[in-house]
C-alpha cells in the first residue's frame, strides 16, 4: 500500500504543506501570531513548544477545525481553504489526537468503519485493517471490542484509521504520552516507514530526546510565535530547550538521605474496580518512609487512579488491615494529640480524617477535583485547609483566608489576579502551583502527588519538583505517581512500576534503567521468589 499519492497539479519541488503568516486570536489571547511553517514530502517535522505555546491551535487550523484570522495555507503548492476536517481528509490530511475518539463498546473494525464511506461493507473494512496492520507491523485484531484494548493498542487503532484514508500528511499530537518506552520504539519504526514512503508527518511534542531521535526538521513555538527552525539532529537538548522556553531548566538537587520511620504501609491490598472500565487492584504492597520520595511509574489506566483513591480515602472500600499510617509523636501542632504516636488503620476513614493525620494528596485532575472551578482561590483553600475556620460553629474568617491564599500566591509565584480569582481563570500550570502550594504549606507528614507536572510548563515544573524535594529533605514521606519517566528518575529515591493493577517490587534509583522500567511497564517483572514456574503459579492465583 502506498500512502503518498502525488497531487496531479503539484510541481515536484512544491513543499507538501506550507503555512504563511498564520494568526489566530481568541478573546484575551493571541494563540498564533504570524506563524510560518514548511513541511517537505516525506519529512518528519517536529512542532516543539510548551503547553500553551499554540501548537494545538496551529494543528487545528491545518486540520480545518479552526479558522485562522489571517494567513494562508498551501497544500502541495496550492492555496487551500480548509473549512472543516472532512475537507482536510479529502485533501489527504489526517490527524491522530492526543485524546482518542473511540467508542468503547464497538469493535476495532466498527470504530474504523464509522469514519469511512458507508458504501464500504464491514468485511472489506476488516480486510483493509488486517492488510494495513500487517504492512506496518501495527499488531491489532479488528474484531476485538475497544474496551478490551490497552491504551497503546487504542492508539494503533487511531493510526490505522488515519492510514486508511491514504494521507499525504499525518498529524500526531503528543502520541507518546500514553506509551511505554518499548511501545514508543515500535511507533517510531512505523512512522519512519511511513515517511520513507513519502507521507509527511507533523509530530507535536515537548519531549526533546524523542524529537532528536525521530525528526529531521523542527519548528519551535513560544507564546504563539516561531522562535526557531532547525534540524533537531544537529541540536542538543539544551539548545532546543533554550529555543522552547528561553532558558535551560535548573537542575534538581537530590541529595542522598537516610530514610526515616515508615509512614505509609500498604499490605496485600486487593480491590475490585468501582467503575466498569476501571482496573482491579491486585495484592499491592507498598511502603513509604519519612524523608524519601517513592515514585510509581507506569502507563495511565493500570490501576494508579484506583490505588490513589484508596490511599486518599476518596474510595473508602479498602478492607481493614490493608492501609496503615503511622503518626509521629513529633507531628506538628495541627495534628490532634490523640492521634500521635500511633499507627492507624485507615480502613473507612474519610479524606478529611486522613488529612488530620497529616496525609495530603494532590490529584491529577486539577479543575473539578483538586479545585472548584467557579470558586476563588481563597475559598478553594477550604477544601483541604481549616486554619481560617473558627472552631465551634465553623465561622469563616474571610480576611485570614484571603491572606493565607495571598501567601501561597506569593511564595509559589502563582500568576493570578488575586486571592479571589476563580480557579478556572488560572492556566493549568499556575493552578497546579497553587494546589501543590496549598498541600505543601499544610506541612504534611505524607504527601501523595499524582502527575505533579502534567501539562505544566518547564519552568513551573522545575519549581514544583524543587518544592517537593525540599519537603522530602525536611522529613516528609512523599509518594509520586507519574507517567513521565524522566521526572521520576529525577525525583525518586525508590521506584515501583504499576501494570495491570499490580505493583512491582521496589527498585533503588541507582538500579533502575529506562529499559528495565519499560519492561516492567508491561507487567513483566521477576517475581521475588524466582523465575518461571512461580510466575505461572502467581498468575493462576490471580485468576482464582
Amino acid at each position, binding site marked *: 500500500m502506498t500512502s503518498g499519492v502525488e497531487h496531479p497539479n503539484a510541481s515536484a519541488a512544491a513543499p507538501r504543506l506550507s503555512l504563511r503568516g498564520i494568526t489566530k486570536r481568541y*478573546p484575551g489571547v493571541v494563540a498564533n501570531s504570524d506563524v510560518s511553517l514548511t513541511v517537505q514530502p516525506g519529512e518528519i517535522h517536529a512542532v516543539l513548544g510548551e503547553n500553551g505555546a499554540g501548537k494545538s491551535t496551529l494543528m487545528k487550523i491545518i486540520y480545518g477545525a479552526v479558522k485562522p484570522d489571517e494567513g494562508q495555507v498551501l497544500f502541495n503548492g496550492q492555496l487551500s481553504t480548509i473549512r472543516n476536517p472532512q475537507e482536510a481528509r479529502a485533501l489527504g490530511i489526517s490527524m491522530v489526537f492526543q485524546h482518542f475518539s473511540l467508542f468503547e463498546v464497538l469493535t476495532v473494525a466498527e470504530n474504523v468503519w464509522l469514519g469511512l464511506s458507508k458504501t464500504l461493507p464491514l468485511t472489506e473494512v476488516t480486510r483493509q485493517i488486517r492488510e494495513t496492520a500487517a504492512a506496518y507491523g501495527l499488531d491489532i485484531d479488528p474484531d476485538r471490542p475497544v474496551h478490551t484494548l490497552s491504551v497503546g493498542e487504542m492508539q494503533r487503532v487511531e493510526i490505522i484509521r488515519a492510514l486508511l484514508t491514504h494521507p499525504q500528511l499525518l498529524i500526531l499530537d503528543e502520541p507518546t504520552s500514553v506509551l511505554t518506552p518499548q511501545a514508543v520504539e515500535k511507533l517510531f519504526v512505523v512512522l519512519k516507514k511511513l515517511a520513507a514512503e513519502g507521507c509527511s508527518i507533523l509530530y507535536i511534542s515537548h519531549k526533546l530526546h524523542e524529537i532528536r531521535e525521530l525528526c529531521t526538521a523542527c519548528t519551535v513555538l513560544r507564546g504563539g510565535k516561531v522562535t526557531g527552525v532547525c534540524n533537531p539532529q544537529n541540536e542538543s537538548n539544551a539548545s532546543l530547550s533554550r529555543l522552547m522556553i528561553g532558558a535551560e531548566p535548573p537542575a534538581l538537587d537530590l541529595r542522598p538521605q537516610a530514610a526515616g520511620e515508615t509512614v505509609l504501609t500498604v499490605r496485600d491490598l486487593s480491590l475490585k474496580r468501582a467503575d466498569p472500565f476501571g482496573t482491579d487492584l491486585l495484592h499491592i504492597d507498598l511502603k513509604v518512609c519519612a524523608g524519601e520520595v517513592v515514585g510509581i511509574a507506569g502507563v495511565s489506566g493500570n490501576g494508579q487512579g484506583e490505588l490513589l483513591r484508596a490511599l486518599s480515602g*476518596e474510595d473508602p472500600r479498602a478492607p481493614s488491615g490493608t492501609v496503615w499510617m503511622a503518626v509521629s509523636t513529633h507531628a506538628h501542632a495541627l495534628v490532634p494529640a490523640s492521634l500521635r504516636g500511633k499507627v492507624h488503620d485507615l480502613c473507612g476513614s*474519610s479524606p*478529611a480524617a486522613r488529612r488530620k493525620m497529616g496525609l495530603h494528596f494532590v490529584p491529577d485532575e486539577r479543575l473539578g477535583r483538586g479545585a472548584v*472551578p467557579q470558586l476563588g482561590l481563597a475559598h478553594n483553600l477550604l*477544601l483541604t485547609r481549616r486554619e481560617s475556620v473558627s472552631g465551634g460553629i465553623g465561622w469563616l474568617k474571610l480576611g485570614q483566608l484571603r491572606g493565607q491564599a495571598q501567601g501561597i500566591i506569593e511564595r509559589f509565584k502563582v500568576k493570578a489576579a488575586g486571592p479571589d480569582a476563580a480557579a478556572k481563570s488560572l492556566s493549568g500550570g499556575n493552578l497546579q502551583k497553587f494546589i501543590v502550594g496549598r498541600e505543601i504549606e499544610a506541612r504534611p507528614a505524607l504527601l501523595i502527588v499524582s502527575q505533579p507536572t502534567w501539562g505544566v510548563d518547564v519552568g513551573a515544573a522545575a519549581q514544583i519538583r524543587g518544592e517537593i524535594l525540599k519537603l522530602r529533605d525536611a522529613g516528609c514521606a512523599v509518594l509520586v505517581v507519574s507517567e513521565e519517566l524522566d521526572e521520576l528518575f529525577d525525583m525518586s529515591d525508590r521506584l515501583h512500576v504499576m501494570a495491570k493493577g499490580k505493583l512491582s517490587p521496589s527498585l533503588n534509583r541507582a538500579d533502575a534503567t529506562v529499559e528495565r522500567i519499560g519492561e516492567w511497564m508491561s507487567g513483566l517483572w521477576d517475581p521475588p521468589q524466582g523465575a518461571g514456574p512461580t510466575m505461572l503459579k502467581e498468575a493462576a492465583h490471580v485468576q482464582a
Partner: protein
Amino acid sequence: MFKLEARPQPSPVWSYASPLLALVITVCIGVLLFVALGKDPVRGLQVFFWEPIKSGYALSELMVKATPLLIIALGLAVCFRSNVWNIGAEGQFVMGAVAAGGVALLADASSGPSIVVVVMLAGVLGGMAWAAVTALLRDRFNANEILVSLMLVYVAIQFLNFLVYGPWKDPMGFNFPQTKTFEAVTKIPRLMEGSRVNIGLLLALAGVGALWVYLFRTYSGFAQQVGGLAPAAALYAGFSSRKALWVALLTSGGAAGLAGALEVAGPIGQLTPYVPAGYGFAAIIVAFVGRLHPVGMVFSAILMSMFYIGGELAQSRLGLPKSITGVFQGLLLFTLLACDTLIAYRLTWKR
C-alpha cells in the same frame, strides 16, 4: 449576522442585568399578547405592574403572596446550590399544610396561644417528612430525586383530598369538601390591623438573613455548595454527599412545610382542596430568577407575587383567563434562561 462569542470570563454585569433584561422582554411579549387578545396593552400592564402596588392594602396583599413564595424559594436555593433537584416543594407544602391543619383541628377553646408555635412546627415536620421520603429513596436506592419528588406532589394532593372529602370533612359544612374553620387561637398572628400580612413575613426575612450567613459565612454552608459545584472536589475534600443530600432535602422540605402551615393557619384558615395553589412550583422560578441568592430572591418573590395578583385582576377587570399568570411566569423563566447566555457569551456583529 449576529454571532455569540465566548467571553474570557463570565460577565459580572450581566449576571445582574440578565434578570432585568428578561423582565423587559417578558413585558414586551406581554404587550404583544394583550394586543393579540384585543385588549388595551396599557390597561393590561397597569393591571400587572401598577394595581398590585398602588395602595397600602394592595401592597399588603402583595406581601401575603410573596411570603410563602420566598420561604419555599429559600429552602430550594439550598437544594439547587447543592445539586439536589427537589421539584416537589408543592407536595412538601401540602403535607406541611396537612400536618399543621391536623394540629389546628385538635385545638379547642381551652388551647393557649402557644398552640401557634406547635402548628408551625407541625408544618415544618410534615414538609420534612415528605422530603425525607425522597431523600431516603435517593440515598438507599439511588432513585432520581427529580422524578420522585415530583411524583410525590400528586400523592400529597390526593392525600389532602382524601382527608377533606373523608375523615376530616366538616360535618356542619353542607357536604363541601373542607374541614371546619380552625379555632381563632390557632391563627397565625397578624402584624397589623386591616391587612392579612402575618408574622410569616418576619420569618421569611429572618430566613433571608440566616440563609445568607449559612451560605457565605459558615464552613458547613461552603461544604454543602461544593457538592453542587464540583462533586469530585467534594469527595476529594471529604465532604459527605449523603449529608449534603439530607441537609438539602430536609431544609427545603421544612421550609415548604412551614409555608404550608402559614397559609392554612393564616389567610385560608381551613383545609380545602384548593390549598395547593402552585406556590411550590412558582418558587422554583423565584429561586432561579433570584439567582439562588437570598437577597435576589426577595425581589423575585415580589415579582412573582405581582404576576399572581395581576393574573387574578386580569380575570375580573379584563376578562382574561386566569392561566395568564402561568403564561407570565413561564415567559419570565424562559427569557431569563435565554438572557443568561449573555453572562458567558457576548453578542458580536460579524459579516
